[in-house]
């Protein structure tokens, strides 16, 4: 929407933008050269000239390549997929078809990628992303993740960074994309004093004062120059108004009419708003305040539109909105845009129109995956809903709750469903009351409000059981099963899941069937349960229940992670993360990533574990489970390397975990604390921080938790009975069979655990071996403990710690990347490497491109050569 700001020099080229233009040109040139797409994220303050920059970039190339341009609107609740609707209008074809049939972001991204690939080379511009609706951001994320597979395309995406508060969803997207392959960032900065001086001189204004006032903001500068007065207006707003103030009264009335239409105002609409003044359009255009593309007039910049809109009196504003509402709602059926109409309906205070169009706009946004916008539309309807029946309002609250949950507005979601619940209750609608209670129970569980969640879950079952059995009851049963499983109470969990399964099958509810089946599977994992989860996965995937399929992947990985069946765990995690990534199933993706971080920690891949954990922690979701897991993993990596800021992480995790009252949460934090305290030599604190979780793990008979907790307590000097049923490697340690334990740990692929087991031996040879291992891993605190133990036994000439500047890390490669590099150097293809390392080929692809980037080379051959040069590979391999 931000139209060209003419901060051009006397010869017409953009001032002080040649470096940025070069960077864009380079990105596009390399995309064309190697056939891998690039994404450039452009940021800068409002009015700094991002659109102008992109326009200049496109204009230089418009003759030889295809340019697609889409922009987001500044509506209070923007149209879902706004920029892609614009783009689809240009491309037509499958993309156009997809964006008009309420498709999911996943489908839109797919169609877009196919479209881009089919007619390369292409420049795709996405403007004003700070206003993007959620579906647009999802499409952008999916596009960004796959950009290096899109042939000869550059995607240029611009947003205002001065308008993004901490919780803005675009921040998360940019944060993730900026780390992705093929993405770069470009900052557009205000003009320098010198640049302002060029313009000032050109227009005959005092340069220093102009710079001081405008701080080099090109839009402000051009507004001041356009107003042409003696004095410089003190704010952008004043400059805009000063410029508009030079227009005739008639032209100003026309400007005001255009200002209340946020998306740009079509000629026919403007004519209906101000029929008398249409003759003055030329004057508005000539002044440069408005621009016209033949169909629609727009403000040259949104800053100007806002400034003008604020000056309209309340009465006139109401009348203008009413006229717009009237005009827009009389359009032919096919052109009706409920989001636009609802906006003006609210401005006109027209209750009936708001209640008719806002829910419609909400439904449309929801089915396109623009959940934040949908929640906004339902909220808008509810503000006007006093006249509706209780049940009708309850339904709106219910829909709003679901959309808020999907956007992780957890407290909003809970509030909305509680309101719905009260209304159903007072209307005596017991079926819907029970259904709402089941939902409340689930969304209370996500942020860790376990106690309340259980209460609501039970109430739902009690309320629904006397009613004729149906889908609602099946879901309530399955929810109870889930709550038991989350607390490691598998026996009760299976009972409820069985009931859910039978009922779901008898009423033909596939989603609940898949949910219940997976719940049963996790409990009976080794006794045929795994096959049940796989069946659930297939069932859910086939019926299009992506969330349930993703949950099945997570459960399939969870048991092998816990039992240290690392290869199997890695396979399911790779598949599951890929499944979620391409479909935009964000919450479950975090669960899977959290399990991957655990796996990497257990495998001694600390670099990777810290990276994965940090990626999850950076995303501010309120779902507690993945957060607690990853805070604990990162804390343990730091503790093992002797790095600072361990307890800060664990204090946060502990606060979250205590409220959940669930062993997996409490246990993860207790174990991480125990490890950190043990490394710091504070044995009493080890015992204190583990006692509650240890008791709970004994009560619940969980062999791995129980074993690990018992082990830490023994290491800290506890002499206490240990239950018989603990996992094998811990059982060996508890029996002081250090060497056997170490051998078992090694064969399970956990080198740190192996070294720690040896570290408890009394044999100097075993201790020396442990010391060597720990030094090799950079585990300083543990190495120091072992070294002290050796010295106390009179041992001399101990190795002095890790070799300086560990060679194997010379180019900043992770251990996994070194393995991949070694195999690459042997001439293996990616598929062969994947097989050898038991990972997916996609994962290998990612490692290979990261290796090329880190070694600053372009081909596999060059990588091998460079690796030998740097001494990254042993010569004799």
């Amino acid at each position, binding site marked *: 929407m931000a139209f060209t700001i003419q901060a051009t020099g006397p010869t017409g080229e953009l001032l002080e933008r040649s470096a940025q233009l070069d960077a864009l040109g380079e990105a596009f040139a390399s995309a064309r050269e190697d056939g891998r797409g690039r994404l450039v994220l452009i940021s800068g303050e409002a009015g700094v000239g991002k659109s102008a920059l992109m326009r200049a970039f496109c204009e230089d190339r418009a003759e030889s390549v295809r340019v697609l341009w889409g922009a987001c609107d500044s509506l209070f609740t923007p149209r879902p997929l706004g920029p892609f609707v614009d783009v689809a209008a240009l491309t037509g074809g499958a993309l156009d078809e997809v964006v008009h049939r309420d498709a999911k972001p996943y489908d839109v991204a797919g169609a877009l990628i196919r479209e881009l690939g089919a007619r390369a080379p292409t420049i795709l511009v996405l403007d004003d992303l700070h206003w993007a609706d959620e579906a647009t951001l999802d499409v952008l994320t999916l596009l960004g993740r796959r950009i290096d597979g899109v042939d000869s395309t550059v995607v240029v995406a611009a947003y205002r960074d001065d308008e993004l508060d901490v919780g803005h969803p675009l921040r998360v997207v940019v944060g993730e994309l900026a780390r992705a392959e093929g993405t770069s960032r470009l900052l557009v900065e205000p003009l320098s004093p010198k640049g302002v001086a060029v313009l000032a001189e050109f227009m005959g204004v005092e340069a220093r004062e102009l710079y001081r006032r405008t701080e080099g903001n090109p839009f402000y500068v051009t507004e001041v120059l356009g107003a042409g007065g003696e004095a410089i207006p003190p704010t952008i707003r004043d400059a805009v108004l000063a410029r508009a103030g030079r227009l005739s009264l008639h032209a100003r009335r026309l400007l005001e009419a255009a200002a209340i239409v946020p998306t740009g105002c079509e000629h026919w609409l403007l004519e209906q708003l101000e029929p008398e003044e249409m003759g003055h359009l030329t004057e508005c255009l000539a002044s440069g305040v408005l621009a016209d593309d033949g169909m629609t007039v727009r403000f040259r910049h949104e800053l100007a539109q806002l400034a003008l809109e604020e000056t309209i009196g309340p009465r006139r504003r109401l009348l203008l909105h009413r006229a717009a509402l009237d005009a827009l709602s009389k359009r032919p059926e096919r052109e009706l845009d409920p989001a636009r109409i609802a906006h003006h309906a609210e401005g006109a205070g027209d209750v009936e129109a708001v209640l008719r169009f806002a829910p419609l706009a909400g439904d449309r946004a929801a089915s396109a995956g623009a959940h934040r916008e949908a929640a906004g539309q339902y909220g808008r309807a509810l503000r006007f809903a006093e006249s509706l029946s209780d049940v009708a309002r309850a339904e709106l609250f219910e829909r709003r709750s679901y959309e808020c949950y999907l956007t992780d507005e957890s407290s909003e979601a809970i509030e909305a469903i509680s309101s719905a619940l009260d209304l159903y209750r007072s209307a005596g609608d017991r079926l819907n009351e029970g259904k709402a209670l089941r939902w409340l129970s689930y969304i209370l569980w996500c942020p860790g409000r376990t106690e309340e969640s259980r209460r609501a879950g039970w109430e739902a079952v009690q309320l629904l059981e006397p009613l004729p059995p149906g889908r609602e009851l099946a879901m309530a049963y399955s929810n109870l099963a889930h709550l038991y499983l989350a607390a490691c109470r598998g026996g009760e969990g299976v009972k409820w899941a069985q009931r859910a399964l039978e009922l779901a099958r008898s009423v033909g509810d596939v989603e609940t069937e898949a949910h219940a089946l997976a719940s049963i599977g996790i409990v009976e994992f080794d006794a045929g349960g795994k096959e049940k989860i796989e069946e659930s996965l297939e069932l859910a995937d086939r019926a299009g229940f992506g969330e349930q399929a993703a949950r099945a992947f997570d459960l399939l990985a969870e048991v092998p992670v816990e039992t240290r069946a690392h290869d199997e765990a890695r396979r399911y995690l790779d598949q599951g993360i890929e499944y979620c990534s391409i479909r935009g199933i964000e919450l479950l993706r975090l669960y899977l990533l959290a399990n991957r971080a655990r796996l990497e920690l257990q495998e001694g891949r600390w670099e990777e574990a810290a990276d994965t954990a940090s990626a999850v922690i950076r995303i501010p979701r309120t779902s507690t489970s993945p957060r607690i897991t990853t805070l604990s993993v990162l804390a343990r990596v730091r503790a093992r390397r002797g790095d600072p800021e361990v307890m800060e992480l664990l204090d946060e995790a502990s606060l979250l975990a205590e409220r959940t009252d669930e062993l997996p949460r409490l246990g993860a934090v207790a174990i991480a604390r125990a490890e950190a305290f043990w490394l710091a030599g504070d044995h009493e604190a080890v015992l204190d921080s583990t006692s509650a979780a240890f008791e709970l793990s004994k009560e619940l008979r969980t062999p791995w938790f129980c074993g690990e907790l018992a082990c830490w307590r023994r290491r800290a000097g506890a002499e206490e009975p240990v239950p018989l049923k603990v996992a094998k490697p811990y059982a060996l340690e508890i029996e002081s069979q250090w060497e056997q334990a170490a051998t078992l740990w090694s064969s399970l692929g956990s080198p740190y655990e192996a070294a720690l087991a040896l570290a408890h031996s009394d044999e100097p040879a075993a201790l020396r071996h442990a010391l060597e291992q720990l030094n090799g891993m950079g585990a*300083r605190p543990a190495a120091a403990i072992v070294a002290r133990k050796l010295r106390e036994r009179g041992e001399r000439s101990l190795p002095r710690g890790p070799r300086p500047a560990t060679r194997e890390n010379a180019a900043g490669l992770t251990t996994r990347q070194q393995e991949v590099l070694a195999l690459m150097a042997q001439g293996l293809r990616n598929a062969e490497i994947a097989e050898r390392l038991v990972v997916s080929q996609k994962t290998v692809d990612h490692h290979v491109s990261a290796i090329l980037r880190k070694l600053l080379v372009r081909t596999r051959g060059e990588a091998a050569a460079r690796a030998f040069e740097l001494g990254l590979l042993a010569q004799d391999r």
Partner: protein
Amino acid sequence: MPRYLVERAFHDGWDAGGDLTEVCRQILERNRDEVTWLHSYVSDDCKRLVCVYEAPSPEAIRRSAARNNLPVESITSVRVLDPYHLKR
């Protein structure tokens, strides 16, 4: 931005391995997006280096060390105490 003290040990003494200005420039370039190297103290025998960094996390310090092929002995989270500019 948190500040960290990074201790580095060189058993055979540190050798920049080239023109110091150029070596430092390269390090700054490689650190550009992630951490800020404020300054360092080098012991007379060149066996110990104490560096002060601003960084978002200890992991960022380690990544920067790996990128520049520098060892890390320990990382400590610190605050500044400046005796000449204490606020009353």
